[in-house]
């Protein structure tokens, strides 16, 4: 189980916000949502809080796809090889000074290292990491590591998980569990769907990788997929040397899918009869198709396991997109009217 998904300071911050709102409402005798004991300030406060949380939650998605698409803004910091080399040389010399005993405290080493990085013009790309050395005489080691200016996506994931969960709770308080208007009900309903599928998703992401790893016996899912593609290409190539009529009969084998072993044998025997002099080629091709079928079966089985912990996104993502759109409409309509 990937417990790192649950361990973050953001869990604490999100909890404080939710508990704060809840306790505040209880102490003020305010009922949630609209009603005789509702409070306009609380509705506005919880509404704005939910909106901010939604924006933060959506930022994770933007961040993730900006990276994958190659649009990360921090790519603009890129420096050339010569600058990196210059900085590395400087850090190497600094290490020699540390080893000779000239620099003893991490603060001093850190400040020297920062100067070196700045002089080389790589301070936005690399920072110096000062760590205790492993050898007795060498008290500290210094090396360059990436600055990772916007933080790892794994951290943004924490933000997504915890503020997303808090968003659900704040939404409950804001809407009073069952809102009055149809739009409000749709909005709340969608919010709950996103909230619940998200909770299921996080649980599955924490557990699922282990299921898949346990199921991967001889082939990993990546290997199975590459092997399957390669066998498919080999099959197509081997079939292409036969006439279109014979190729069509091979196609009846459907790459081994949906055709039983006995049916396959009948088809292959039929092709044998038609082309007795190509017996060896046909047998080889039959073996290739069987191999492809076995790999495909394995691949499908592995894909099913992966789908078991990824399928929640089929509901979560469209619902979340719709929810974002409806929240925008809700906010604008409240603002305007």
């Amino acid at each position, binding site marked *: 189980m990937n417990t790192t998904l649950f361990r*973050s300071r953001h869990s604490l911050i999100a909890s404080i916000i939710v508990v704060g709102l809840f306790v505040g409402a209880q102490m003020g005798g305010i009922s949630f949502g609209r009603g005789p004991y509702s409070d306009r300030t609380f509705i506005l406060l919880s509404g704005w809080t939910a909106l901010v949380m939604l924006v933060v939650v959506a930022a994770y998605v933007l961040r993730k796809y900006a990276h994958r698409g*190659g649009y990360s803004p*921090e790519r603009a910091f890129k420096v050339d090889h010569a600058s*990196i080399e210059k900085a590395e040389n400087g850090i190497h*010399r600094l290490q020699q000074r540390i080893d000779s005993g000239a620099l003893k405290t991490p603060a001093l080493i850190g400040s020297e290292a920062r100067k070196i990085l700045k002089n080389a013009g790589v301070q936005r*790309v690399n920072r110096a990491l000062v760590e205790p050395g492993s050898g007795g005489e060498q008290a500290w080691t210094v090396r360059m590591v990436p600055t990772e200016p916007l933080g790892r996506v794994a951290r943004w994931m924490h933000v997504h998980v915890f503020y997303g969960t808090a968003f659900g709770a704040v939404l409950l308080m804001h809407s009073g569990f069952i809102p009055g208007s149809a739009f409000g009900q749709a909005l709340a309903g969608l919010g709950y769907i996103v909230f619940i599928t998200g909770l299921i998703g996080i649980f599955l992401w924490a557990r699922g*990788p282990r299921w898949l790893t346990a199921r991967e016996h001889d082939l*990993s899912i*990546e290997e199975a997929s590459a092997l399957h593609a*390669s066998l498919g290409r080999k099959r197509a190539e081997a079939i292409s040397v036969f006439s279109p009529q014979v190729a069509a009969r091979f196609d009846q084998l459907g790459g081994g899918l949906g055709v039983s072993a006995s049916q396959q044998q009948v088809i292959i025997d039929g092709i044998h009869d038609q082309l007795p002099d190509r017996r060896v080629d046909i047998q080889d091709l039959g073996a290739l198709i069987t191999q492809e079928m076995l790999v495909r079966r394995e691949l499908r089985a592995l894909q099913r396991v992966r789908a078991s912990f990824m399928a929640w996104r089929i509901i979560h993502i469209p619902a979340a997109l719709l929810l974002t759109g409806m929240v925008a409409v809700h906010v604008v309509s409240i603002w305007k009217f």
Partner: protein
Amino acid sequence: MDSSEVQAPSLLELPLFSKLTKRHQASLAKFAQHRVFPAGTDFIRQGEYTSDFFIVVSGIVTAYRTEKGGKTEILDQFTGGEWFGELSALSNQPAMARYKADLPCVLAVLDGALFKELYSFAPDFKKQVDQIYRERSLAQHLRVVPLLKGLDKGLLSTLREAARFESHPKDSVIAVQGERASEVVLVRSGGLSKTRKNVEGAEELVGYLMANSSFGEWAFLDGEGDWKSTYKALVPTETLALPIASIQEAFAGQPEIIDRLRKTARLIAAEDQGIDTSLYDVGDLQATDEQLEIMVHSESIKGGEALVIDLEKCVRCNACVESCVAVHEDGVPRLSKKGKRVSAEGNALGKELSLTTSCYSCEAPGCMMSCTYGAIRRDSHGLIRFVWDNCVGCAECVKGCPYDVIRLTAPPDPEVAAATSWVSSLPLIGNLLAPPQESVPVPEADRGYHREQVVKGKAVKCDRCEGLPFEACVYNCPCGAIERMSPALIFDQSLLGMATNHIEEPQ
């Protein structure tokens, strides 16, 4: 290295180059560089990876070595016509000393590939280099032989005359399992495969030995002096053989040294056979830094760092691969998740892991040894880098890399029709899947040293997202599943005494 290039007197006037063929003279004239260093410049740092060979044209250079504890000694001094750097040029190992220009200096520099070309094909050049190496650096170099590690340079110089230089062509057998072993062999350059017969008598590959590795320590143990494996040259290889009898003779009057050598030999022998070394009485050698160094040098621990995926965290979203593609203009991913699996029982972290196929900057880089075009170098910090201009896409490095991390991309010039891909390098099916296409000649600058060659593609591998403020794969994994760590941490953590949970947990 700070330097400026200048015109300087012809190198061909130096005795070292007096007998070169016309072809080699032309190579030298074209590729050797002259550099000027003002007085007081440290132009090579101790520990820096360099493969350059230097000839002092004018001035004085001094080599200083700083031992652990800060004590610095002068190793050597070089004046006009003398040279240094042959060890690093041959083996690509870190410089043993700091080199400083005492006076303003003009140095001629041959890069590793040019040096190796002359060393392999110009006999007189090789003879002169070997002779001076024997006189000057051999004793220092012998300190990398695990058996002799820690012995004083003065003591080792007594072995100087006994050492035998040997050249082995590709595929030649250097030692045969079961035959009498009577020497310790140090690999100076190139690489060897090490095979052993299994119970059924079939030959099994058990490892590789690269520059500065050694074998034959068994022979030092009484009654156990047979080769325990068969050693075969993978590429043209230079070795240095030290007869055991000469070592024994050299230290005959010093029983404490003989005893120490025996203990070390036992430790190496046990390590070689995968035996728990604690069963042996190796006295003060046990579990010390020295032991670790011995193991590193005997190649039982590889250097470099691997990209490791924790399979209990990885949801197989492929963001790592897609992010790698996104930061490289050629759109070729430098990592593949189809890496080597390591079961939870098989590693010190106790987690199901996958070592992705991304470069480890190996201690003994098979890729660099296979490349004869000088297109793969170790940079001054030990990272293996590809020199784009020198690469001709011959795919030898792809075969040479034991971890299958190198990909071939199409050549950069769209007019060059030689499109090929890593698929074509797959055994048996490669040519079926990606038939070889026509290649066209390329400009002279892209050729190796005097080889007519066409550029079929360019080799690429993980460059750690050089110049960017992140390693895209690690940075973009939503689950914190992928991390960089030393393979030694995974497999030999108890030995290294490192922290257990090294996969960083985001806060």
